[in-house]
């Protein structure tokens, strides 16, 4: 399938989808060294975002979350791309400073964890 959205940070990436149907908090919700999701109540608890195409509605929580994405990228533990329903400040800023391809305005309900996803500019293919 091929979906078209809006570029938040442009680039190309390919990887396995990891899908959270609920908003994600990076500050306090993802281990900045390992990429493991640590937020209680999140369906991805215990899974790692490292190298994945991370699919979630939007970010939430502290704006310090942008720096957590940066730290993940420096540690090689960041997702290879992010796909959102509606991006907001925390994730957008995080994607830009960490140079992680990010696209939003995507009907994320169509993507399942484990799908092989390719992100290229505004296009998401799986």
């Amino acid at each position, binding site marked *: 399938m091929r979906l078209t959205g809006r570029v938040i940070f442009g680039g190309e990436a390919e990887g396995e989808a990891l899908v959270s149907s609920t908003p994600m908090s990076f500050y306090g919700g993802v281990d900045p060294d390992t990429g493991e999701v640590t937020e209680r109540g999140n369906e991805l608890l215990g899974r790692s975002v490292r190298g994945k195409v991370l699919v979630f509605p939007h970010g939430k929580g502290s704006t*310090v979350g942008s720096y957590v994405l940066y730290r993940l990228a420096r540690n090689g533990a960041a997702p290879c791309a992010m796909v959102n329903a*509606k991006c907001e400040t925390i994730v957008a*800023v995080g994607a830009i400073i960490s140079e992680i391809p990010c696209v939003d305005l995507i009907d994320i309900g169509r993507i399942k964890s484990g799908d092989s996803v390719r992100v290229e500019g505004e296009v998401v293919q799986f």
Partner: protein
Amino acid sequence: MLLTEEEERMLAGEEGSAARKAMQILVALGKIYGAERMVKVSSVQVSGVSYKNLGDAGLEFLSALAEDGKARVKTTLNPAGMSLTDWRAQGIESGFAEKQLKVIDAYRRLGVEISCTCTPYLAGNEPTFGQHIAWGESSAVAYANSVIGARTNREGGPSALAASLTGRTPLYGLHLKENRSPTIVVDVKTPLRFPEDFSAVGYSVGKAAQDGIPFFRGIEWADLEELKALSAALASSGGVAMFHIERITPESAVEAEGIESMTITSRDLTEVGKFLNDEGVPDFVSVGCPHCSLTELATVAKLLEGNRVRREFWVCCSREVKRQSDEAGYSDVITASGAKFATDTCMVVAPVEELGFRVVATNSAKACHYLRNAGLKVRFMPLEECVEEATRAA
């Protein structure tokens, strides 16, 4: 988004890599929030200063920006994780201090004023009515929009810094008059006598209003300290970035009919008081969240005069207000009692839990909110009782 030639140059990297990164951030935010163009800002307040929150990644990011980035407008700084001069007396370990000083050095190289306060409006960063600004620090955002009538969205650390390095911010949200109207009427049916009452009301209303704009009716009078306390509490339990108080705040002559409404009674104040009071005897007392004004320092000095502090007591304020307090003679009285000034920092952003304290008494609902999130027990009480608690025999 429509960009000027100068903005296009920044985006193309012709004005350096920091300006490029900053413009990328602003363009992305403009796109997300539907801004048609950028607007020039006259002042910036940067949050994201404490090493406790930034970590090594934040430090690295700031150091990279400082290689060729420069503030283009007046830019002041939020509190750091320690007093920049007296951190040893605060019990801060040297590893933390070294990193914190590196963060400050990066900001200094970026041309940011090392003001380190959440009340920039008491320390020389004083925008005027109608000015576009880009401020982080949620309590200062609410104060600037509501009490001063300047215009800012609720910025995060990187987006505020991006505004500083370009002198611009995308024109959307609270920069536009049509988005500054109230969304919820709050009828206050109980007299508010002290800043702590305003703090409690703010905490209660923030929960209900979320990121809306409350319109308060029934408040007869509010001084600077009370408006400061209200701003901080509204922005901590909720995401309030602006409020109106009928006949008091400058943009309150607006239509507030036909929207959602709520009532605040004395019972609501009591409930907040109960909610923010854990079991336990305080081993740490602190006032100044947001940072104390000179008036508050005068009160603290008066209450402490001739008394001895018997447990750790931090009086948090900006170095600018501390300087005024030195001149007025309040500082000598306060330190003679054994109380400590915590300038450049506060009980929320300093690593208080790592200093071994467990139960904090404070007159700020905002501080209670964040300290509890950090795992501490809290006791919310008026300023006078905080001083009593600090001086009471164990």
